[in-house]
Structures are given as C-alpha cells and as structure tokens.
C-alpha cells in the first residue's frame, strides 16, 4: 500500500505546505521590522513615550514571529536538496549563488543584529540600538530581494546558458538577477508585507480601541496602520495590475488560468467574475462574465484578441481551478483593503477615527486578510507556473529527488503534525500578547524583565474594562 504513494505528489505537497507556513512569518516580519524602525526613529526624534511603548509592545511579538520564521526558513534551505535534487543539480550554478547572497547579506544581518535589537537596549545606548533595528529591517528587505529574484528567475528565466551536464549556467548575472518578472514581483511582495503588517497592527489597535478608546498607544497604532492601509492599498492594486500585465507577456498560460480563459477569443475576451472551472471539459461552468472587459484590462482595447488554453497542448496547462480561485480570493481581499483604507480616511476627515465602532470592527475582521491574500497570491503564481519548475525549460516531474514514497510520506506527516502543533502554539502566544492592551512604561524583553512575572499577575485579569470586550 505504502509503495503506491507517488513520491512526486507527496514532495509537491510537502514543499507547498512548508513554504506556505514559512511565508506567513517573513511577510509579517518584513513589515514589522520596518514598523519597529519607524517607531524607534520617531521616539528618538520626538522623545514621546508612546512610541517607545509601542516599540516594546511590538518587539515582543516580533521576537516570536522572527523565531518561527528562522526555523521554518532553515527547513526551506535544505528542502531543495532533499526533495528536489535534480532541480538543485541543474539550477544550482544559477540559483545557488543568489541564495548564498540571500544568506550572506540578509539572514546574517538579521540574525546577527537581532540579539542586540531584542536584548541589548540597556547595553549599547539608544543610537547604536536604533542602528541595530535598522540593520534588521534592511536585512529582512535584502532577504526578500534575493529570494524573490530566485523565484522570479524560475518564472521568467534569463541570462543563462546550458552546459554538457545539462545544467543551467550563468552567462549574464545582471540579466539573471533582474530577470523580467523580478521588479514587479519584488514591489508587489514588499507592498504586500507592509499591507499585511498594517492590517495586523490596525486590527490590534482597533481591538483595544473597542475596549478603551482613550488608550493613547492604541490610538497611535490604529492611526498609523490606517494611514498605511489608505496609502498602500491603492498603490498595491496598481502594482498588482502591472505585475499581471508582465505575466501576460511572459507567462500567458498563467494569465489564461487566472482569467479562466479555456477558449481563445479573437474579438474581445470577457472578464469571468465567477464560475466553476472544469479542467477535464476545458470550460467554465455557470460563468458570470462581463463581455470584452478582460481584453480592455489586459490589452487596453475592447476588441483585442486574447488566446486561451485551447491554443496550448493539454500537457502544458496549469491546474486551472486552483489558480482561478486563489486569484479571485486575492483580488477580493485587495478590494476590501482598499475599502478599509477609504473608510478610515472618511472617518479621519470627520474626526471620528477613534470612536467609530463599525470601522474598528471592520479593521479587526481584516486583521488576518493580509496573510490570506499573500498565500492566495503565492498559490496563484506558483501553481500558475505548473507544470514547470523553471518555466518552459524544466518540468516539475523531472525535478524531484529519487526518493521512495514512504520516505516522503513519513517526512510529510512529521512536518504536518509538528508545524501545526509548534506554530499553532506560537500563534497562540502572539495572540495572547496582542490581547494585552499596550500601556505606558511597556516592558521590554530583556531576560528577567517583568514579562516573566506577567504570568503571575496577568494584566487582563485586573483590567476593569475586560467585561466590555466585544464578543468577536
């Protein structure tokens, strides 16, 4: 029975599972690192205690998220070799150096300065400590830079040749690093990380405003987060559109799957809003569509012809239903983020930002939206690249390690069980920290500091407003 397990499918599930868990933490810590740097910078510039309180409040959360990002990232750096050894052998000369740069310039920067950032506040003085915080923030950005360059090369390979052993070899590093989809993906992902963090910070601020609208730290964080949402959400939609047009140019099959275009449309393609994609039959059932709008969006002309998947052999089709739905989830959440930002601007203009409860409830509900949108976006782009690992050049089926089914089944089971238990606990601890209202003279995380005694006298149990807490 065990021998019938398909190691390829299992390896794909394992990679998808572990990378999906992993991306959640960097998406949060990239944004949070920058937010922390801004808070500390504002404190140094203005001397206002509320910024330091917020810094320490979010630093505790950052420490947990970062630890989970480190350990889940470690798994990723080895999984290319354990499960995708043929891919590693063939792409190593091109992708390996970029991954090495990621480790060197980024991971080290983060991990090396993180100790000072987390524990060194009283050791190194405020300016050096701020420098450490900035280094951590830059480190998270460089990390994203290199790893997104690697991913983008797999989507839109450039600057390579091949050698006698069948390996991809570098010919032009500039063309490899700045391959055609990279600038778009980098902007789209970094904005997504900022937006995700803003939504989390906004949700936590809103949660505490619902309990105590006078809490100055809750006010400050909510206001900052809503500025971010209002400014970044529209920019992100614009960046996403540009990214989509770039994908149309380089990976048309992915866009066909996103749009649900099984058929070619020689005189204007409709925009399919919803429907049930049927991969076998090659059609969208119960399609709700707007005529010619897709051609307008993608080609800026109502009657522009758009090819469909019927123009490609079936063996080159990505799994349409997954790509179709994950794309709609991402776009739908993006629209809700835009709406949240717009409502917050309206509330701010009318001076009701801190007392308009429906806005606060909406913000709380949108707290996890960024993570869902990030995952949906990655599923769209990664599943949309199928059936290739290196688009058009190396098939997924020809990339895997020569492993036996039971070995991969065992490791996949272990990953699922351990990730759910360990990371669920981590998320629980983060939520517990978030449930505590930020207060003046917030404690840091220096070992031996009052956070340990917080377990003895839990702040929520002595909070007189606790019974006012809304049920959501």
């Amino acid at each position, binding site marked *: 029975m065990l021998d019938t397990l398909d190691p390829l499918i299992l390896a794909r599930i394992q990679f998808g599972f572990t990378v999906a868990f992993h991306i959640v933490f960097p998406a949060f810590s990239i944004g949070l690192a920058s937010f922390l740097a801004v808070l500390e910078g504002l404190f140094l510039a203005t001397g206002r205690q509320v910024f330091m309180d917020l810094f320490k409040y979010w630093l505790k959360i950052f*420490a*947990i998220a*970062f*630890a*989970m990002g*480190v350990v889940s*990232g*470690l*798994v990723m*750096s080895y999984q*290319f*070799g*354990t*499960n995708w*050894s*043929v891919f*590693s*052998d063939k792409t*190593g*000369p091109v*992708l*390996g*150096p970029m*991954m*090495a*740069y*990621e*480790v*060197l310039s980024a*991971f*080290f920067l983060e*991990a*090396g300065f993180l*100790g000072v950032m987390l*524990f*060194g506040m009283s050791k190194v003085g405020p300016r050096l400590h701020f420098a450490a915080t900035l280094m951590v923030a830059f480190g998270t950005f460089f990390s994203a830079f290199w790893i997104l360059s690697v991913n983008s090369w797999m989507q839109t390979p450039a600057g390579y040749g091949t*050698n006698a*052993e069948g*390996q991809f*070899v*570098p010919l032009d*590093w500039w063309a490899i690093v700045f391959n055609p989809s990279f600038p778009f993906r980098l902007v789209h992902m970094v904005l997504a990380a900022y937006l995700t963090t803003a939504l989390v910070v906004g949700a936590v601020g809103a949660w505490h405003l619902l309990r105590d609208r006078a809490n100055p730290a809750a006010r400050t964080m909510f206001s900052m987060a809503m500025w971010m949402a209002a400014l970044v959400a529209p920019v992100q939609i614009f960046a996403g559109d540009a990214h989509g047009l770039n994908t149309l140019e380089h990976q048309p099959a992915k866009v066909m799957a996103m749009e649900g275009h099984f058929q070619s449309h020689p005189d204007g393609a409709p925009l399919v809003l919803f429907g049930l994609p049927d991969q076998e039959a090659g059609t969208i059932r119960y399609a709700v569509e707007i005529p010619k709008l897709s051609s307008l969006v993608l080609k800026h002309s109502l009657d522009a012809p758009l090819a469909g998947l019927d123009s490609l052999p079936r063996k080159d089709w990505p799994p349409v239903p997954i790509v179709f739905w994950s794309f709609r989830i991402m776009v739908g959440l993006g629209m809700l983020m835009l709406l949240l930002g717009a409502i917050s601007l309206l509330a701010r203009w009318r001076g009701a930002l801190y007392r308009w409860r429906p806005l606060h409830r909406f913000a709380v509900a949108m707290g996890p939206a960024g993570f869902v949108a990030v995952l949906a976006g990655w599923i769209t782009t990664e599943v949309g690249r199928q059936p290739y690992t290196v688009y058009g050049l190396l098939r997924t089926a020809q990339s895997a*390690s020569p*492993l*036996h089914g039971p*070995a991969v089944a*065992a*490791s996949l089971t*272990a990953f699922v069980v*351990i990730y759910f238990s*360990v990371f669920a*606990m981590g998320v629980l*601890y983060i939520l517990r*920290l978030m449930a505590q209202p930020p207060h003046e003279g917030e404690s840091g995380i220096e*070992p*031996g*500091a009052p956070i*340990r005694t917080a*377990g*003895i006298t839990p702040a929520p149990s002595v909070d007189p407003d606790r019974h006012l807490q809304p049920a959501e």
Partner: protein
Amino acid sequence: MVYSVDLTVIWAFVIAFAVFAYIVMDGFDLGIGILFPALRPGPERDTAMNSVAPVWDGNETWLVLGGGGLFAAFPLAYAVILPALYAPIIAMLLGLIFRGVAFEFRWRDPGHRAAWDVAFTGGSVVAALAQGIALGALLQGIAVEGRAYAGGWWDWLTPFSLLVGVSLVVAYALLGATWLVMRTEGLLQLQARRFAQRLTIATVAAIALVSAATPFLQGRYFERWLAMPNVLVSAQVPLLVALAAVALWRTLRGGGERAPFLIALGLFALSFLGLGISIFPDVVPGRITIWQAAAPEASQMFMLVGASVLIPIILIYTAYSYWVFRGKVDAHGYH
C-alpha cells in the same frame, strides 16, 4: 583551468569554515540543551538558557550558509548528499524547530515551561544525533549512479553512523558544559565543571572509537592515516588530541574559567582537521571530488566577490555581538 581549480579549492575551504563555525557555535548552545535535564528547574536552567539566548539564531545561520554554500558552489554534491541523508536531515531540521521556538516559548508560557524544556532538550539531542549520523553516513560512503543518489532510504543507518551520532552528542555536551564554566558563577559553575570532567573522558573515548573505526571503512582512509609515509604527518593529530585532552582535564581540575572552553574548541578543531585529512579533496567520499561537483567558474566567482566582503564583516559583528553579551550571566540575563 588552473584558475578554476583554485576557486574550487577556495570554496571548499569557505564551506568547511562555515561548517566548522556552525559546529562550534551551535555546538555549545546545542550542548546546553543536551545538559538541560541535569540542571535544576528554576534559576539554574534560566541562567543556562540566558547565556545563549542572544546568540543562538546567529549561530544557526552558519548552518544555512553551509547548506546554501554547498548548493551554490557544489550543486552536484548538494543534489547527491541530501537525498542520501534524507531521514537524518529531516530529523535534524525538525529537532532544530523544537529547540529554536523553545527559546521564545518557555518565557511566554510559564504554565507549560516544563513541556518546552523537554522540547528544548529533545530538539537539541535529536539535532545533534542526526548531525552525527549524517556525518557518519557520509564517511562510510553513499551509493551514486550518474548524477544522483542510488541507494535506499535506510542506507544511512549503520553501527558506525550511530557511533558518530552518539559521539557528537557527547562532544556538544562537553562544549556546552565548558561554556557554562566560562559564563556562570557559583553552584551552577561548580556543577558544570563536574559535568565537563566526566564529558572530557567520554569525548576522548568517543574520538578514539570513531578514529579507530574510520580507517577500516574505506581503503583510502587506511592509506591516508596508517600507511607510510602519511602516518608520519597524520599521527600528529591524535598526539595533539591527547595533549589537548590532558590540558583540558588539568584546567578543569585547576579552576580555569575560560581555558576549558577554548581547549574544547581546540579538540573540535583537531577532530575537524582529522575529518579533512580523511576526505579531502572529495566532497562525497570515494565518489565525487570537489572539482567534479563544482559549479562553473562564473558562479563561484560571482559568489566569491560577495563572500570576501561580507564574511569578514559578519565575523566582525558576530564578535561585536559576543562582546556586548560578554561576562557572567545569571537568571536575570547579562550584567
């Protein structure tokens, strides 16, 4: 061609350096995890944990560099070794997950601190054991066909690989104990000193056993170590190990605080040197040399530019970070 040969050797040394840096730096904090059950819950454990809390994730990053560097500079070796060592590598990664999160979680959740302490120890022991087993499995040789691993998924499990696994657990514990001798005071230091003495004996025994078994794994090792004239050079390594062991024992008995840790590092360096004598210039012993596995010159050169600037910077600020957190530590963190 001569030029690219040089680059390949340089990269072999860079990766060997990263692996060694990982072994000694994560070694002492894994060692703390291995010793954890022997320490009393409360201030003793808190102190031991605090002594490594600010540096462990920087230490672990060297493992990412070792793996990433192998992928970049020797992709064929990366593609052959990792599937061959599938089970121990996955076990190591899962062990490191438990251990890594335990650093944060045990402070966050005093109600479950005992459980996270078990996770900390369990993760540390599994990671150390798996690293040792992986090393042992690599040394005893792995089956290669064409450009891929050709063995089964239990090939790694042999008495020799288990011996190396247990040896590494013991040796990491020694490193952890000497670290505590250096960084703590009072009763905890006294206790660590006693552990370190016993672990010195155990480590020397482990080194002797592994060294005695290695030459008989593959004919090449035998020639390297025991045939004339190589033996004249290679015999210096066990002699130095014996000297270091005696010195370690004396400083532990004589009340040295920093010396035991430094000498323990020396023991690791000698063992690592011995490993190098066994396998260089192979990267998959007996199967693939570093030149066969090497990435093209353009790849190695591109990386070397960055590495030669960044690795020294990393070393400087790692040293700075250790300097900031120097001195004795107690349950309330660094003073």
